[in-house]
């Protein structure tokens, strides 16, 4: 469904990605793991059109998208839940969700999607009128995911959904991610520093190190890989 091929991205003179290649089949949950500065966030930002690659291609549903502006990529059903959640802090939960449906025209469909988002995250319905900036970290993460779902994506990219969230809520969020994938067949690319968690919910994993894919394989195999365990899974 998504294929990234030989992606090179740099910030000025600094190379963030030097030839990243991976593919994600339809309906899967695939994870990208790696330490700080490995290029995980850069990869997602390039796929969603926030950054331009210096070289390489991104193909989504058999169409090259690496030169499209971000809004055109969203309109093709590829939504990105950014690192740090980036909810619109001064807007209410309701307005944030409405912004998620910015490109949707069909009112009945929007209402339907909203009902679905509430069924996944009932908390959002309770907090509908509340200003997003006053939500807890976990609730903001739910809102960020809910907002992305409002765009009716067929492909969802999640950047560090566990970051800065109460441990009690992390499990809930990950259950919901699996639920979104199973019930709606939304393909998911998950970026995580918490490799244990990421390997638990995904079927396939790529390991990034300084802008390159250094290892890949089915998640339940990688979980037992001694080298990976030593580096990312705490032994």
């Amino acid at each position: 469904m998504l294929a990234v091929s030989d992606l090179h991205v740099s910030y000025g003179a600094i190379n963030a990605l030097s030839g990243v290649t991976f593919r994600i089949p339809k309906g899967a949950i695939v994870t990208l793991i790696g330490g700080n500065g490995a290029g995980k966030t850069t990869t997602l930002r390039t796929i969603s059109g926030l950054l331009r690659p210096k070289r390489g291609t991104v193909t989504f549903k058999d169409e090259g998208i690496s030169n499209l502006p971000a809004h055109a990529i969203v309109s093709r059903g590829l939504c990105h839940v950014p690192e740090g959640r980036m909810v619109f802090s001064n807007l209410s939960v309701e307005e944030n969700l409405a912004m998620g449906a910015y490109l949707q025209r069909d009112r009945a469909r929007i209402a339907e999607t909203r009902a679905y988002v509430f069924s996944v995250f009932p908390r959002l319905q309770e907090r509908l009128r509340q200003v997003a900036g006053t939500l807890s970290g976990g609730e903001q993460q739910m809102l960020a995911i809910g907002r992305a779902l409002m765009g009716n994506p067929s492909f969802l990219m999640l950047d560090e959904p566990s970051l800065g969230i109460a441990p009690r809520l992390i499990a809930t969020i990950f259950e919901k991610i699996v639920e979104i994938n199973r019930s709606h067949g939304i393909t998911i690319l998950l970026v995580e520093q918490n490799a244990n968690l990421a390997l638990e919910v995904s079927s396939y994993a790529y390991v990034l190190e300084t802008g390159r894919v250094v290892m890949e394989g089915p998640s339940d195999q990688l979980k037992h890989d001694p080298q990976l365990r030593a580096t990312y899974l705490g032994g």
Partner: protein
Amino acid sequence: MSEFLQQLLNGISLGAIYALIALGYTMVYGVLRFINFAHSDVFMVGAFVGYYLGRLLPEHTVLGGITVLVGAMIACALLGMTIERLAYRPLRGAPTLNVLITAIGVSLLLEYTGQLVFGATPRTFPAIFPVAQFEVGGLVISSNQLMVIGVSLVLMVVLQLIVFRTRIGTAMRAVSLNPNAARLVGVNNDVVISFTFGLGSALAAAGGILYAINYPSIDPLMGVMPGLKAFVAAILGGIGNIPGAALGGLLLGTVETFVSGSQFSTYKDAIAFGILIIILLFRPAGLLGKFTVEKV
């Protein structure tokens, strides 16, 4: 007492004009985080468009006056969008200082093109609206003052509705809060920024017409002082904050009028700006602004 009310009325009608201009500064700052110094010259162009349109139409009619007002607003909306497209959009992603210098360049370009095209000699603005004066309990109210207050009020309500009730208005707020997050939900930020310039410039044009109705001598440098005051008003209210700009404008206009009416009238600008400095010493983010630390 009637003296006080009289000055208050004069102050509010002057402040309403500052407020209209200040809204443009603050909205553009909201979406692009820079001060569009060419804004005060769009105000001037608005007055000149009104001048030429007004000479084509019969004077002293409500319909003619409204036509001039709307015509100038449309012309300046297009001008503002063109300026953004040609001068600022190519600098997207460049350091703010570069954009700021460009804005000063655009400002000078408009001022001196104005001198070339309209001539440097002041022109007399036509009386486009019917004029009347009323006396209410010792208070002299001119129809022009009511016009200024009425038109400003209507425009501010319309602006409020656009910003808080429409799709594009919500997108404006979203872009202003977090441009990248807005792009990730599918907002074309260029369209929103262009719309913001159009909206702000239309309000500046309305300000230009209303100003010219009350001070009917117009010239290509007429925007400089009101523009500076409106900029100050926007800062005073909290830059980026729409109600703040309106409040700042009204406050500055009122203070200026009261000082003009006192024995210190020579120092009216000094006192108005002095008040600004004092307020900013105590509230660095402006009256309605929130002091925010830039996060990484």
